[in-house]
């Protein structure tokens, strides 16, 4: 089915644009708001009332269709009783390491903001075996 290939091609092109970075932040904010609406058992209208924002604006935020200033985001988070911050997502890079069975592996490492690291086995060193996609979660610090 070539439609899926075409769809993924469009997505790849979008990821190369600066707009995609802004979209990711809007999605993160929407996710936080939705999570806390559920936890507080609030409707969108209630959040609008508590923040004095228009219901339609809240709706656009929940759909990640609206931009907002940091001040606006702060008012929403305050009303929900939430603290949040922007964090850099580090790029994954290759390191060598020892896996849980003691074998030396070339690992794809991705650092997470809270100090935890996720390793994926990229390839077995010294062999031509195809890589296994095994995750080993290691906490550091």
């Amino acid at each position, binding site marked *: *089915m070539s*439609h*899926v290939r*075409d*769809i*993924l091609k*469009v*997505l790849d*092109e*979008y*990821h190369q644009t600066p*707009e*995609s970075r802004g*979209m*990711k932040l809007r*999605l993160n904010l*929407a*996710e936080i708001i*939705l*999570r806390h*609406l*559920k936890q507080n058992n609030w*409707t*969108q209208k209630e959040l609008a009332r508590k923040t004095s924002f228009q219901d339609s604006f*809240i*709706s*656009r935020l*929940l*759909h*990640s*269709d609206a931009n907002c200033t940091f001040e606006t985001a702060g008012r929403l988070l305050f009303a929900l009783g939430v603290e949040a911050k922007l964090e850099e997502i580090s790029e994954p890079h290759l390191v060598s390491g020892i896996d849980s069975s003691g074998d030396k592996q070339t690992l794809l490492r991705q650092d997470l903001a809270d100090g935890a690291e996720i390793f*994926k086995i990229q390839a077995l060193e010294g062999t031509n075996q195809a890589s296994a*996609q095994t*995750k080993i979660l290691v906490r550091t610090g």
Partner: protein
Amino acid sequence: MATSASHNLRSFAPPLTAINSKVKIHRVEPLFVGDDYRTDVWISEHASEVLNKFLGKTKAKGKEFIAKVEHYAKSGFENFEHSCGPIRHEWNRVFRIGQRSSLFRLIGFYVSGKSEFMCMDGFTKRGKKLSGPQRERIAQVAKIKSQKSWVRQPS
């Protein structure tokens, strides 16, 4: 020779005279499937054709929509499910993934709890309410779910 027992059975169970080959089996292909995704998203040929047309017609809005669906899949569809959110229950366990700015909807259902989502159809709403044909399309997706008339086709 018909006995009273077999006569009673015939009253409740029509005889099997033919296999129903008229039930269409919908093949679904991976759209967002793998370790990176908390909700694996599969898509039928029909839904991918509809989605592809939408992307071709709308350019910027289309790109934003598919980027959002990918993010929902990575984060887990449940995190964006809400009566006010982009992922909502329609009826009969059929859900829609919607874009507010374009009124486009992808329609599908969960399997394996909520770890997988099967997209079966899509359309663009024209007004505030769904039209009759659009409601019928949702009903058809519900039927695909209840009949389990779909099969995974790895790409």
